[in-house]
């Protein structure tokens, strides 16, 4: 850490122009802290009204949808008549789709628990915070680990016949392979873009892919007995 005083107090003198700002600079903060002058706007009215307009536009869309389409309602709840298939709300259909492949402890508890834990800890790991391309440093070892993990995951999904989860995995792996073959000096801008992406980006993208695909499959492609159906053929 750089040497500095315990703290420095700075006062912006142009109080007319902007409210007073007090900056505490502690020992742990770099002494190089300095304000970057940047164009600023008043929250009121600029930001608040823009936000209000955005919300109103959304409200217009929702009101229009509500006027055109009524909320679904089925027959009175009847514990003795199970509809086939019985589906959870749509945002849980990814989970329900996984329940089709894995035991409930894995699909219903372990996976969602791990996902929530992973989401929470994201900002607390430096590997997530650093923003270097995944393969730009320690390339050999990272490539080795990546290939092992990718192959192992694919075999695992394949052996459980989880093809709907395997396809997004393979797509993300393909992009990662492309990223591994690229660098920041690559000719194509897309390859430079891929090369700059850190590990956390890849994991999150994989998660997003799986979430979208599994939810879509559970919502549209599952019929009686959780069998595969084509939504346009009914």
């Amino acid at each position, binding site marked *: 850490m750089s040497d500095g005083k315990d703290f420095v107090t700075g006062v912006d003198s142009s109080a007319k122009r902007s409210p007073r700002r007090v900056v505490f600079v502690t020992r742990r903060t770099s002494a190089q802290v300095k304000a970057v002058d940047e164009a600023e706007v008043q929250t009121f009215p600029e930001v608040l*009204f823009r936000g209000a*307009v955005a919300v*109103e*536009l959304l409200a217009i869309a929702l*009101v*229009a949808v509500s*006027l055109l389409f009524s909320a679904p309602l089925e*027959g009175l709840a*009847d514990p003795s*008549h199970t509809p086939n298939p019985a589906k959870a709300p749509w945002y849980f259909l990814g989970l329900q789709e996984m329940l089709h492949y894995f035991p409930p402890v894995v699909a219903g508890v372990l996976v969602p628990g791990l996902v929530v834990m992973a989401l929470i800890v994201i900002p607390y790991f430096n590997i997530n915070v650093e923003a270097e391309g995944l393969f730009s440093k320690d390339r050999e070892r990272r490539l080795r680990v990546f290939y092992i993990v990718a192959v192992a995951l694919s075999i695992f999904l394949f052996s459980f016949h989880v093809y709907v989860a395997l396809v997004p995995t393979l797509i993300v792996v393909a992009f990662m392979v492309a990223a591994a073959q690229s660098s920041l000096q690559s000719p194509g801008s897309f390859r430079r873009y891929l090369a700059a992406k850190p590990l956390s980006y890849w994991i999150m993208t994989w998660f997003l892919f799986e979430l979208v695909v599994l939810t879509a499959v559970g919502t549209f492609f599952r019929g009686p007995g959780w069998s595969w159906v084509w939504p346009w053929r009914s």
Partner: protein
Amino acid sequence: MQSSNSALSWWRKFISDPVRTFGAVSVVLLALLAIAPAKNYFSEWRHYQNGYLRLIRNRGDAVTLQRHVQPGIQQIWHPELGVTDRCTSCHVGLKEASLADVSTQPYRKHPVIPHAIDQFGCVMCHRGQGAATTVEEAHSSTLAWEQPLLPARYIQSGCGQCHQKPLDSTPVLNQGRATLARYGCVQCHTVKSPDGTIIKATQDAPALSHVADKTTREWVYAWLKDPQAYAVSTTMPNFQLKDEEARDISAFLMANSTPVVGDTAPETAHKAADPAAGGSLYGEAFCSSCHAVQNAAGNLVGGNVGPELTHIGNKVKPDWLRAWVRNPRVYDAATEMPHYRFNDQQLEVMEGFLLAKKDADLLANVHLDTATPDQIAHGKSLVTEYGCSSCHEISGIKRPENFAPELTRIGSKPVSQLVFLERMPHTLPDYIAAKIRQPRAFGSGLKMPQYTLSLAQIDSLTTALLAQNERAQTLPPALMAPNAPASHYQPAGKAGQLMTDLACFSCHAINGRGGDMAPDLTWEGSSVQRQWLEEFFKNPNTLRPALIRRMPKFNLTNDEITTLTDYIMTVYQTPAFDRDSLPATGYSPTEVEQGKQLFYSKYACQSCHIVDAKVDKGYIGPTLTAVGSRMTGAWVYHWLKDPQLLRPGTVEPNRHMGDEDAKALTAFLMMQKGSVKSQGAKK
């Protein structure tokens, strides 16, 4: 170009001020929000209410009709029945009797029914979604409401939810329920009334434990293959058996049969038929009251209590037939057939007459080899598999429990649980009707046999089954109108044995037990004179000329007649009055003359009854030429005062006579002694 540029710059300037944009967007949002109440205002029910107001505007009674109209959503609410019916929001004129000429829905008036329109609401009978206020939701099957409006031909199922007893106004329902019990549906399917009683079959299929005494294996085979080929009116369904299945079942039934002692004792020589004598004996014994025979034109003539006899000669063995007619109770103690006391000569004539009733082609193509043990064993497993013993008693095979699905709540079964055929409407009534019409079409492995039913019978059965629903099972007890509990009345002593032997209960009802073919005898002892009754037993003549079913002659001995008469006169008396309170004779001529006036002018009794056979033409009620010899004075008097009190449901109208009129009419009627004396003297 210039203008579009300036428009663009104006637009840029406009949205650059967020406050102004906010104002503009707010206006759009508010306008959009205003659509919701507008949508609410232009609702379907308001449209129909306005249409009704336009309809009645130019009618003569517009003011009255308008006063009855209440604007807004109307509802009939019976929380205890789960009824919230808003149908009257659009069907505004349901209760307006003066709208009889209006035929456009939703303004038609409701037909007259025994209940007030709003006593139970609409969906109790009509189904559909009562709470809905749009045409589509109220009448059709939707995601939120499965049961659409019930087609009108099944409407009597609504009555059957409360009324378990047959009603005069529900012929379809009554027929359906009778069919359900008669065709043995309830032998395989359990069907419970809301009070928990299981509906019983009204016709017991014959026991097959001694079938070899009665008939041949060839006949059994042909019968199994196609029962209707032998007797068109039989209730035995066609199981659509393969040849070897029918072969093996017939083999098993024959091998399983045990002889009945005394059933087929060797008889004297069987004589050739004497059609004339046989025909007249068949007629005198009134066999056709219970048994039908197909005539040359193909029409069935006769009753349906006993089996059809068109081809009886193909079926029965002569020895068995002779023994059966001599005394049916030897073979089947519980049979509904009376024990006629025929003498040997009569038996011979009857046997010859019946055996001649055959179709030479019926069994011509049936050739069966001797059954092997394997075939017999296979036959036994088939008998178990097809549930034959649900209806027929077969020794060695137990009656299966819950052989077919219970139908107690079939009328509210969710459509989602049904499997439909292709191209058939997905509604419950259609499913039930189709399943009755062609049960095997719903799957090759199904066991339900093919019945021979008319379309009207299928509709009536469907109606009866639709009445078996959840609502009927969960009605408040106050609304249940249960059937009278089954009576097991059995008269005691020697007379009782005699009545069983003569199968009186096959035709007559006493104390709630018995058939409805002949008059109820519960109060017979108060009603008739002893002397007449004795004469009647000796030679039962007809009372009602319009009827073809009459009391047969049983050839009773004098002792038997005395026993029966004593019992009837003593036991079957009404508590309502004293039999001997009015005399049989000795009325003053003035009274008689006054009664005659009343009979012919004031009450015009001659339109239904005959007193003077030369003049009167009334054939609806019983002939009264000999009523003074038949009835007791007290019965006639009280009958005139209130016929329904003595016999509920009789067609005789209650004329609300005063004591004096009734007395005078009784005097007149008791003087009608007829010619009974001379008949008795002839005997």
